[in-house]
Structure formats: structure tokens, C-alpha cells
């Protein structure tokens, strides 16, 4: 059975930070609804790959195609809209806005997309509920545990109904049980909503939540292999 056309595809990406190469011809496909783990040692280019795929950074060479369109061909305004509405991003530290409550943090992407305030807050509350942190909705990030803050960040990443969530070491700063709660919540929610997830991790136990794994080594995708 042939696989459908990937939702997001990177082909031959190269990217250097100054004179240090981060990607050297990395190619990867992400299919609709798929959870893909990208693993590899520190410095293997995982985060740079994520930034290129999410349209945050432009590669030096190669192309990223999303839903049949090359990101490089999109005007900045359209790319920005794409990042806001069809992509969600979660980093190791949730990067919630410290002055806002959990509820307002999650409502923010909806407000930016033009949803009215009351509706945004209602939807934000529902997403906090799905991630088991409704009880913390009035707390600010500094008042929450790491796991609660990260689940709030996931709710914020998913509240706009993106087709792809990029998660860069989402459990990297958490203890193992909190990490497990975050991963379980992410995987269940992604499966229910058909959201594709690109999961960057150096942790095999986190990668095991994914449907599939690709390993990066020295800036390129390794054939089946051991991360050295």
C-alpha cells in the first residue's frame, strides 16, 4: 500500500549557525495525524530541523513543503498566519507569558486570530480541562508546577486546532512522572484531534510514545542506527 503524500516534508536541508553546520542534507516526512519522534545526540541538529520545518528559520539549502506549498515561496505575512493557525509549538520550557494566568495564556492565540474574548476564554477553559489543569486556570506560570505549566503550554499549542504540533524536548525539564503525564496528554489529544506531532527528544522513553522514529546524526537522518 503506498503512503499518502506527506503533510510536511523537508528535503535536503542544510543550515549553518555562523561557520558551524547544524544540518547537512536532512530529509524527513511527517504524515497527517502521525506522531514522529526525531532523536539524536546533543548537537545533532534536532532543534534546527524543527525550526526549519516550523517556518521559524529559513534553511540555507533544500526545501520545506507543507500541504503541497513550499514555505520558501510564501510571503512572510502568509507564513506568519500559517504559524499562528496551523502550527502549534511547545518548547522545553513552555514559554508561557509570566504575567498572564493559565487561562489567559491559552486564550491568547485565539484572541490573536480574531476570536472574541468570551469565546476565547470558554475554549481555553475547555482545553485546560482536557489537559487536566482546569483547576489551575487562575494561576500564573510561576505559581504552577513544571508539569502543570507544560500541560498549559500544550493546551495553548493545540487551542487553535493546528494540524501540526512541534514539541521540542517537551518533558526535558520534568521529573519522570510529570513527563509521563505530559506525554500521555499530548498523545491522547493529538490522536483524538488527528493532529500530527513532530517530537524532538533525546530520551528513548519519550520517543516510544511516537508511531515512528528518525535519528539525526551530524545534521542528517541516519539510516536505522545507534545514536553515537
Amino acid at each position, binding site marked *: 500500500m503506498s503512503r499518502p503524500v506527506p503533510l510536511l516534508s523537508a528535503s535536503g536541508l542544510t543550515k549553518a549557525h555562523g561557520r558551524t553546520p547544524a544540518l547537512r542534507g536532512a530529509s524527513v516526512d511527517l504524515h497527517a495525524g502521525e506522531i514522529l519522534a526525531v532523536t539524536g*545526540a546533543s548537537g545533532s541538529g534536532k532543534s534546527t530541523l524543527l525550526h526549519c520545518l516550523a517556518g521559524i528559520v529559513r534553511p540555507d539549502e533544500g526545501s520545506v513543503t507543507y500541504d503541497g506549498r513550499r514555505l520558501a515561496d510564501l510571503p512572510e505575512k502568509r507564513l506568519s498566519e500559517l504559524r499562528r493557525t496551523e502550527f502549534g509549538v511547545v518548547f522545553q520550557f513552555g514559554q508561557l507569558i509570566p504575567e498572564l494566568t493559565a487561562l489567559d495564556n491559552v486564550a491568547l492565540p485565539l484572541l490573536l486570530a480574531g476570536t472574541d474574548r468570551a469565546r476565547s476564554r470558554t475554549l481555553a477553559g475547555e482545553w485546560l480541562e482536557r489537559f487536566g489543569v482546569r483547576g489551575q486556570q487562575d494561576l500564573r506560570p510561576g505559581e504552577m508546577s513544571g508539569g502543570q505549566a507544560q500541560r498549559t503550554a500544550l493546551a495553548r499549542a493545540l487551542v487553535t486546532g493546528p494540524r501540526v504540533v512541534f514539541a521540542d524536548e517537551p518533558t526535558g525539564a520534568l521529573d519522570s512522572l510529570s513527563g509521563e503525564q505530559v*506525554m*500521555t496528554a499530548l*498523545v*491522547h489529544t493529538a490522536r483524538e484531534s488527528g493532529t500530527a506531532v513532530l517530537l524532538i527528544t533525546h530520551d*528513548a*522513553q519519550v*520517543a*516510544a*510514545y*511516537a*508511531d515512528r*522514529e528518525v535519528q539525526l546524526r551530524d545534521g542528517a537522518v541516519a*539510516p*536505522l*542506527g*545507534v*545514536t*553515537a
Partner: protein
Amino acid sequence: MLGMSTRHILLGLLATGPSHGYDLKRRHDERFPQARPLAYGQVYTTLQRLVRDGLAEIEGTGSDGGPERTMYRATDEGTRELSRWAGEIAAPAPFVANELFAKVVVAILSGGDPAAYLSAQRAAHMERMRELTALKAAKGADLATVLSADYALNHLDADLRWMSTTAARLTTLTAEVDAA
């Protein structure tokens, strides 16, 4: 499993009250879902030995509407023995006798391809880890499943970390063997 003892596990299951062999086998397989299922023959043989050693005794027979079955219960001595065993420290891996380790060493010594082996073994480990993660992350997964999957996952993860380090060391290791 280190220090694994069917005798003590059956005594542990009897600690909740008298039971018969069929029920003990069923409860064992529920509580240790990732372990090899107990054979009925092993259960009955072990129960007979527990009785012989004074750690369990026959409570009577019950049929419960089905075939007649012998009920067993733990004796006081059995309860003491269970408590002693449960608190006894298990020796932390006194010997390294693992098939993965042996295969890599043999591959290096015999001029084989340890990198290819490690690569394929890693893929097999990850596949098993995905299966176990799906089991424990399933909605409604019971505690026994979660605990046993966690145990297996952490051990597979330890293997993986050893495999990664070994892969990184292969050049040096092979050079040492070649020079010897």
C-alpha cells in the same frame, strides 16, 4: 528476573486469603501481566511443596458450582517466610551475563560487524518500547500493567543507553583488539 520465586509469589497471593490453584494462576497472570504466564502444573507442584514445608496448608475443598478444588491457605510460618523474603535485599546484578553484551564482545573479537548488530538491536528495542508504552498509556490501563511496563521500559532504556555508549566506543575497542 533476579530472585524470582514462584513459592513466594504464591505465598503473597495467599496472603489475601485462602485460594485454589486455578484462582492463584489467574491472579498471578493478572498481577504480573508482562511475565511468562504460570503453568498449572507449576502452580500445583509449588503448592504441594509449600504444604510439605509447612508454609501452606489445605483449607478444605470447594466447588463453587464447578469442579471440586482444593483450597490452600498460608500458615503462620508461611506468613513469616513471606515477610522475610519481601524485605530481603536482592543482590544488585552481581554478574554481567547478558546476551546483548556477549554478542557485541564476540563480534568485536571475531572481526564481525558489531555496529550493524547494535543498529538492528536498537530498532528492535525501540519497537518493543513503543508496544509497552502504548499498553501503559492506554486509557484505563490497570496498575499491574503500568508497573510491569515501567519496569520493562526502564530496563530496555538502560540497554539502549549502553548500546549508544558502546557504539560510540567501537572504534577504540576494535583498535585495541586489533593491536592485541
